[in-house]
């Protein structure tokens, strides 16, 4: 190629964005030192005394830190599985619909909740599941005792998983739908001529054809195991459900910005980042090996 003379222009086009990233993503990273310090806000990050791993040791002695870690993993594991299953089943069913208009209309409606904020979704769900809300009307109509969904440690995780699935299953199906449209119709024609029923076509053509996409999404979801959904939990939880609903990110917010224990919050946050980073590397390696996927 002879057009090598544009490098300067290319660097200039990238410059503004890179500067902003340096200021807002890279520069704050020196603050990670706080995790290893007896941080003194008056002295700042550069002058405070280094104390090694004491903050991390202290973190492991805290009983609520253990709960928080367990909650994070269980909540996000339940969400990832439920989301994947619902999205897959929805995509498979939608794929059976032949009328384009019906298909498009259902898709449009089902993607919509993804674009609403957790603040609003939490507001809606809190109203619907409140003591005199719509759901409890049904519960009492069926002859059961009303349930305090948002202050019960039994129900709260279910509410988290349910509202997550409600919001995201449609959007999660996009990748499956894209994979399904890629299957060659001639496979189905051949199967139909050989007398394969629709169930057999599902098992022997559809599922094997999208197996790699299912594996890919399952593997990639591993990277976000420690993200159980800050916006959702923060807007839905209250003190009564801390035992079942508090997750790493909400815990970091409370000890860091509410209780001002900067060094402890940074230590917890750093541990989470490091573990997540390792999970990302592992999941991308697995995705590359099993589904031949690369980021770019």
């Amino acid at each position, binding site marked *: 190629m002879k057009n*090598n003379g*544009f*490098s300067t*222009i*290319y*660097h200039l*086009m*990238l410059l*503004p*964005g890179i500067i*902003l*990233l340096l200021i807002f993503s890279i520069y*704050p*990273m020196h*603050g*990670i030192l706080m995790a290893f310090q007896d941080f003194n806000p008056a002295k700042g990050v550069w002058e405070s005394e280094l104390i090694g791993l004491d903050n991390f040791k202290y973190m492991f002695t805290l009983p609520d830190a253990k709960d928080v870690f367990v909650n994070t993993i269980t909540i996000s594991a339940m969400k990832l599985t439920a989301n994947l299953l619902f999205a897959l089943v*929805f995509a498979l*069913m939608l794929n*059976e*619909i032949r009328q384009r208009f019906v298909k498009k209309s*259902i*898709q449009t*409606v089902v993607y*919509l909740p993804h674009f*609403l*904020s*957790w*603040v*609003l979704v*939490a*507001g*809606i769900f809190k*109203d*619907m599941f409140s003591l*005199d809300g*719509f759901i409890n009307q049904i519960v009492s109509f069926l002859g059961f005792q009303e349930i*305090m969904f948002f*202050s019960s440690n039994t129900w709260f995780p279910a509410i988290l998983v349910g509202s997550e699935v*409600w919001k995201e299953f*449609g959007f999660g199906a*996009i990748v499956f739908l894209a994979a399904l449209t890629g299957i060659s119709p001639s496979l*189905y*024609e051949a199967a*139909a001529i050989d007398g394969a029923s*629709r169930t057999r076509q599902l098992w022997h053509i559809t599922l094997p054809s999208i197996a790699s996409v299912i594996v890919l999404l399952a593997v990639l979801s591993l990277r976000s195991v420690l993200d159980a959904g800050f*916006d959702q939990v923060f*807007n839905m939880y*209250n*003190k*009564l459900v801390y035992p079942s609903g508090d997750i790493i990110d909400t815990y*970091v917010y409370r000890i*860091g*910005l509410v209780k001002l224990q*900067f060094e402890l919050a*940074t230590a917890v*946050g750093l541990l989470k*980042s490091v573990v997540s*980073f390792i999970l990302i590397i592992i999941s991308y390696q697995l995705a590359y090996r099993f589904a031949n996927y*690369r980021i*770019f």
Partner: protein
Amino acid sequence: MVVSRTAGSKIADGIILIALLLMAFLCIAPLLHVAAISLSDSAKVSAGLVSFLPLGINFDSYIKIMNDSRFYEAFGISVQRVLLGGLINFVLCVLMAYPLSREKSEFKPRNLYMWFLIFTMMFSAGLVPTYITIKSLHLMDTIWALVLPGAVPVFNLILLVNFFRNLPKELDEAAYMDGAGPLYLLFYVYIPLSLPAIATITLFSIVGHWNSFFDGLIYMNYPENFPLQTYISQVVINIDPNNITNVNDVSALAAISNRTLSAAKIFLSMLPILLIYPFLQRYFITGITLGSVKE
């Protein structure tokens, strides 16, 4: 495709269609419910009579909101944020995607930049250090604290880079022969050809700015600077969880909160999304799939 005409197959089609329609209904039912509550008479709401259609239709709660300056101040801040933040995201994304979509032979440091971007996306300093940085830059209580930290949406950028890379290389050759430079090529060839991808990432960044509440909560010291979602989370939803200490308080709180008013605030806050979504959604499916699927 061969469509089988057996009775069993037709019944299966019917069941699938009904199941799908039910799922679709469940997705909008909560939204209809909120709209119905916001338009209903409070007494009928507390009596539990309102489901998906308003009863005793009135606009009382909307009139109350119109007299509530805090609500539309917050609304205004969110609109400002979407316009400014959306513009910054758009300009940076388009400007950065072009050089990053060049072949390595044409722009050697390409992968270096790409790894830098991916690094910032995967590894962040965390909540407290970022907060302290924003504070030390004196951005607290300014709109810049809401738009600058996310100025480069790396995920959207990668979608756009992949989209650009899939455009035919012959376009470049032809344009260069005619003496066009990179900027000309970007604005007159790449952008017009990438409208679905650009519409998609614009929708994502607009929705992202409209929906975020947490940065407003931590970077704004004064409630009059809250964007809309932060205002809603404080006034309608969160009513400080730390003050709720026992079960009785929760129910007491639920009883005094005005459900029709809250519902109206929630409904008005999602209205902009409901209005722009139908116009942009037809692009985003092609935008996502073409940007993320590679040869």
